[in-house]
């Protein structure tokens, strides 16, 4: 009888086991992660060396920690057991597969094998194994494939490999759990036994004072070190801990930081030969970085340092930061290299080192651009884009007497002209030059715009263009325009293009009006500026017809 089934069952046995294999594995690998976090959190503070405020609840905390540790231990133990079960199961599978491999190798040796075939659970019957090379393999999920013995061997080999992978990951998990258990054990013992938590209890002021002391000592040490190191141009030891923000600068920032450090070292060696505190260098770096990154922040820091000036770590650095700037200004101003100690600076021991920095600073800052509020001033004019850009919203605007239409313009007074202009536009489609504008619009519209004389008043005297209301954003461009043109001292132009108005296809400004005062100049400029945006872009907001 064909004993194909026997093999397939055996195979399916393997398949089933591999099924459960997969079932078990994900569980194991996923869960430890959760535990790790919590135990980490627990263990970290235990060994911490941080000053804590005097607390009365120490014993409570203690027992809590203890309880938590025990819990942790217990859970880890559980997981460990599970993992070990899993591991043993996997190893059994692997052994079975290896047996199967051996069997498959020997199976095709004979055409038929004499075997005792189990019949039910209680009997065996002598029989033969035929078709010895044909093996039905369970691939999984109720799929079978008929394969030769050799191919089946390949399949089995692959399964063995899978098994080994899983065994390895299980062992890894086991190791992790063991590690955690050991840690927990140690901490537990520590709490009970000879190990003592190194906790210094101090108040806030004590802490501050100790920080101060520490800082002073560190500076002293570095002065010493740099003095010794300037003898040989080897780079001085790097500062103990770059300020926090430098670390937060990121890769590019850090690299430039290092470059700057090196450059500073060089300069120091060349020029000074005096001890220069790396801390100061740090601050210079800060400064340089800040200059490169964000000037305004620096300025703000400067102001802060001016205002606060407590003997705080951050402020110390800030204080130092702006001191060079002060010196810089004074240097630039009068070439005076006198030290200009900020009154807010509290730390005295920095004074000695500052003198040496000045020439360095001067040099460095001459190389770099100057930092000051003035320099930081952004250009206050608007770069008016090209006529063809989409940013420009051309506003048709005339002073017209036609009835104000229901145009959705938010600008007071602009309704009339826009309407008028539109009509005119429809009426005259081909205005080719400014003079045409005059011809088209010259006469009829003269009354309604007393305020905005911009467009085309031929007869009525031009009233002042200075808008009464400064709040309306729509007015701004006119004002800007005015201010540029006639020097009428309008308000400073807004640093952004004029807000969007309803579109119209007529030019916003007819230079005609403007050019009452400086008619010739205006005419000249209009003609020249029609084609391009010249350097006087702020003035020549020309829109082609």
């Amino acid at each position, binding site marked *: 009888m064909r004993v194909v089934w026997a093999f397939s069952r055996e195979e399916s046995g393997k398949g089933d086991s*591999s099924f459960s294999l997969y079932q078990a594995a994900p569980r194991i690998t996923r869960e430890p992660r959760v535990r790790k976090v919590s135990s980490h959190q627990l263990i970290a503070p235990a060994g911490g060396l941080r000053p804590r405020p005097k607390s009365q609840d120490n014993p409570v905390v203690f027992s809590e920690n203890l309880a938590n540790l025990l819990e942790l231990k217990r859970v880890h133990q559980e997981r460990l057991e599970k993992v070990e079960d899993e591991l043993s199961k996997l190893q059994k599978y692997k052994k079975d597969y290896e047996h199967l491999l051996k069997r498959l190798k020997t199976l095709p040796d004979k055409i038929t094998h004499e075997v005792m075939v189990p019949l039910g659970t209680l009997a065996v019957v002598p029989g033969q194994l035929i078709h010895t090379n044909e093996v*039905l393999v369970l691939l999984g999920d109720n799929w079978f494939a008929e394969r030769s013995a050799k191919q089946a061997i390949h399949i089995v080999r692959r399964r063995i490999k899978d098994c080994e992978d899983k065994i390895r990951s299980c062992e890894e998990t086991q190791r992790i759990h063991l590690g955690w258990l050991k840690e927990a054990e140690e901490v537990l013992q520590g709490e009970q036994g000879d190990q003592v938590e190194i906790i210094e209890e101090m108040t806030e002021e004590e802490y501050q004072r100790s920080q101060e002391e520490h800082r002073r000592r560190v500076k002293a040490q570095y002065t010493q070190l740099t003095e010794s190191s300037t003898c040989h141009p080897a780079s001085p030891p790097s500062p103990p801990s770059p300020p926090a923000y430098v670390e937060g600068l990121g890769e590019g920032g850090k690299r430039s930081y290092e470059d700057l450090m090196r450059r500073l070292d060089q300069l120091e060696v060349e020029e000074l030969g005096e001890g220069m505190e790396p801390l100061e260098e740090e601050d210079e770096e800060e400064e340089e970085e800040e200059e490169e990154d964000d000037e305004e922040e620096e300025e703000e820091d400067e102001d802060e340092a001016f205002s606060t000036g407590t003997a705080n770590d951050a402020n110390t650095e800030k204080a130092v930061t702006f001191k060079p700037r002060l010196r810089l200004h004074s240097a630039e101003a009068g070439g005076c290299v006198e030290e200009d100690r900020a009154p807010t600076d509290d730390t005295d021991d920095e004074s000695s080192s500052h003198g040496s920095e000045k020439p360095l600073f001067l040099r460095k800052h001459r190389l770099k651009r100057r930092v000051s509020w003035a320099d930081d001033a952004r250009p206050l004019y608007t770069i008016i884009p090209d006529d063809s850009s989409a940013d420009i919203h051309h506003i048709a605007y005339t002073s017209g007497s036609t009835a104000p239409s229901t145009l959705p313009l938010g600008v007071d007074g602009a309704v009339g002209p826009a309407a008028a202009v539109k009509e005119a536009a429809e009426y005259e489609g081909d205005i080719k030059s400014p003079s045409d504008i005059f011809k088209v619009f010259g006469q009829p519209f003269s009354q309604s715009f007393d305020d905005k004389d911009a467009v085309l008043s031929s007869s009525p005297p031009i009233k002042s263009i200075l808008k009464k209301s400064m709040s309306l954003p729509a007015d701004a461009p006119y004002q800007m325009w005015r201010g540029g043109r006639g020097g009428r001292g309008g308000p400073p132009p807004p640093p952004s293009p004029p807000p969007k108005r309803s579109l119209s296809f007529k030019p916003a400004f007819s230079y005609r009006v403007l050019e009452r005062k400086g008619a010739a100049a205006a005419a000249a400029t209009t003609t020249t500026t029609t084609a391009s945006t010249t350097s006087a872009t702020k003035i020549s907001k020309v829109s082609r017809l």
Partner: protein
Amino acid sequence: MGPGALQKKLEEEVEAYKKIQKDISKTSGLRTQLDVQLNENKVVKEELDLINEENVVYKLIGPALIRQDLEEARQNVSKRVDYIQQEIKRHGNTIEKLEKEAEAKRENIAKHQQQLQQMMMKQAANT
């Protein structure tokens, strides 16, 4: 709300919370199972890709081994893999949703408990 009513409300909330928890565990169990199936089907897919046309493929349907076409078998398995992945995602979403609900419920319960405690204290103070 009197303490009795509040307590009843609290119990209701706790019940609802327990139900949500049960749902969560059920869904996550399903999801684990799906994970297993996914892995298995992936293996099958690999094996099927390896064998060539000459070999026969059977599928176990009930007590019978039904012969299948290799191509068809491959397609079936791929589709099954995709389907299982979708199911896993769906279950994952459900679990997330349920967890959020559970979180909300938990907070609610805590709030109610607090209220109850306060009331108890007030009553104790009054009497």
